[in-house]
């Protein structure tokens, strides 16, 4: 569908939502460290970085139009705003989960031992997707386990009870679960690198009418990421601040970063976005989503269209609602911000 008319006007003030996840912590840090203001001032706009404690709610708020942009995983960008008819552009491909999501089992045995077990996870999320991929990898299907929906904030507590033998979670919860005696990670996103991608998405109409916003966001992101990659005092301080914002200790936060593959270099991000691998990944993701009924009343998995750099599309080209837009990352790579 077309982006709505009102949203296309040029505006001065924008709200970007974020929720707590290792790969998104640069955003609030940038806000506090003044990096946001610096770039916003440069482009003569105002950007509010808004924390939403509950991840799903942040995406819902974006879908409802209360936020102009939000941090989100690729699968949720597809199933929530895009499937809901909201034309969405992913302008920053920030990282992929390289172990930040994992399947946990108690007791001995490898992944195959999960057969017949009850698995606690946030249903219909990337965890669900990860579980499906994990089961695939050992020749099982979703019918071989029984899933129990468990809120992400409570999954650590749930995993601590003897009732729960298997669970899927992401960081920082995953780390806390690994610390429990007798718990082991049997599959992780490191086994499917590049499939769980964390994005910053914005409303397509808004970004079209306000390219300044895209430029400012790209500027903020790469400056902050560069800062946190530094192995000196400044970088350490930045990471410690991010840890604090996430409610974690610096050590725990560093551990989480290790399992997050940050596209710190914009060139690399552009390459990843333009690579055909992303199309493959998104095909898998949307097939999974469709099979779970996440496209609601849609006839086929093609109902929701996606556009990739270079004019490639996936699904219904008349109904493109998720666009991977590398142009702003490209500007950053070219140093034209």
């Amino acid at each position: 569908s077309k982006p709505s008319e009102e949203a296309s006007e040029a505006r001065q003030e924008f709200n970007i939502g974020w929720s707590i996840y290792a790969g998104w912590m640069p955003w609030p840090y940038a806000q506090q460290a003044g990096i946001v203001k610096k770039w916003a001032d440069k482009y003569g706009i105002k950007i509010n970085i808004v924390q939403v404690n509950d991840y799903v709610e942040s995406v819902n708020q974006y879908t409802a139009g209360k936020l102009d942009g939000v941090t989100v995983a690729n699968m949720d960008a597809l199933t929530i705003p895009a499937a809901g008819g909201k034309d969405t552009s992913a302008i920053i491909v920030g990282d992929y989960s390289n172990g930040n999501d994992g399947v946990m089992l108690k007791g001995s045995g490898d992944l195959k031992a999960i057969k017949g077990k009850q698995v606690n996870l946030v249903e219909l999320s990337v965890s669900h997707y990860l579980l499906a991929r994990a089961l695939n990898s050992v020749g099982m299907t979703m019918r071989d386990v029984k899933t129990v929906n468990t809120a992400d904030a409570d999954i650590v507590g749930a995993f601590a009870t003897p009732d729960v033998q298997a669970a899927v979670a992401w960081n920082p919860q995953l780390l806390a679960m690994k610390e429990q005696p007798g718990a082991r990670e049997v599959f992780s996103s490191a086994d499917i690198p590049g499939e769980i991608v964390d994005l910053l998405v914005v409303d397509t109409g808004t970004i079209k009418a306000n390219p300044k916003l895209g430029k400012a966001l790209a500027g903020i992101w790469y400056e902050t990421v560069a800062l946190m990659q530094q192995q000196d005092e400044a970088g350490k301080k930045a990471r410690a601040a991010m840890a604090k914002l996430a409610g974690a200790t610096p050590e725990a936060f560093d551990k989480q970063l290790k399992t997050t593959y940050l596209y710190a270099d914009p060139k690399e991000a552009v390459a990843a976005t333009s690579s055909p691998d992303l199309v493959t990944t998104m095909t898998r993701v949307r097939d999974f989503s469709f099979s779970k009924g996440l496209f609601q009343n849609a006839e086929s998995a093609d109902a929701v269209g996606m556009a990739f750099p270079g004019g490639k599309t996936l699904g219904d080209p008349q109904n493109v609602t998720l666009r991977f837009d590398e142009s702003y990352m490209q500007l950053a790579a070219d140093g034209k911000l």
Partner: protein
Amino acid sequence: MRWVNRQVRRSDRLMLGALPILLLVVVYLLLAVSRHAENPADKILPLPGAMAESMYGLIFQPDQLSGQLIFWADTLASLQRLGLGVGISTLAAITIGLALGILPPIRATFGPLVTGIAVIPPIALLPILFIALGLGETAKVGLIVVGIAPVMIRDIAAHVGELPREQIIKAQTLGASSWQVMIRVALPQAMPRLIHAMRMALGPAWVFLISAEAIASDVGLGYRIFLVRRYLAMDVILPYVAWIALLAITMDMILSFASRRLFPWAHGVGH
């Protein structure tokens, strides 16, 4: 005629009562239609057609995986949990509330504890609740009980504590022991208030049920609502909420009717 004296006839009452609710429905429809005019794929205020379609599947078509009719399985599971939770709380309210209200030493000893438990938001203590009760049905029923029982207990205790002292004295002069004062004077007079307390607690009970189901569950009305919230499926959420409201209002009406029927003396048989 002064407004305080204007009694409303039964038939008019139904009509008047329906009015604001109908109005709300109309406002909703107008908003929904205007949003859909802008964005036909709008998910936030679905049109009745979309809701009917989604619900049709849940109500009539068995789920591929489990073979159940999802809507009815959800309803049954939730009602069971709610019934158990409210039942246990009611029992606790009438026994503990009665004892607290009428026996000063018990009140002195356990009153502060009950107040303490009543004011602790159980949502905050979920991890401990999990450890104590596991993650199964017990935990869900437990959350409802921990959530509503203390409030009910305090309400009954306060009510019983306000019985005219004369009645207690009178009963004793008629040979009643403490126990008999409790079961023959305080208990029957607490019953209508107990039903009132149940009616007041139903709202919070649903809240805790839904919270519990949101946390860890695989079936239930609250589970479904929180599951589909992931893709903002208001076309399922709204009918589910309406169904919950309908169930809750039915319970409320049954309780209110039962109270009038069983305890006529408490509902102004006089003038």
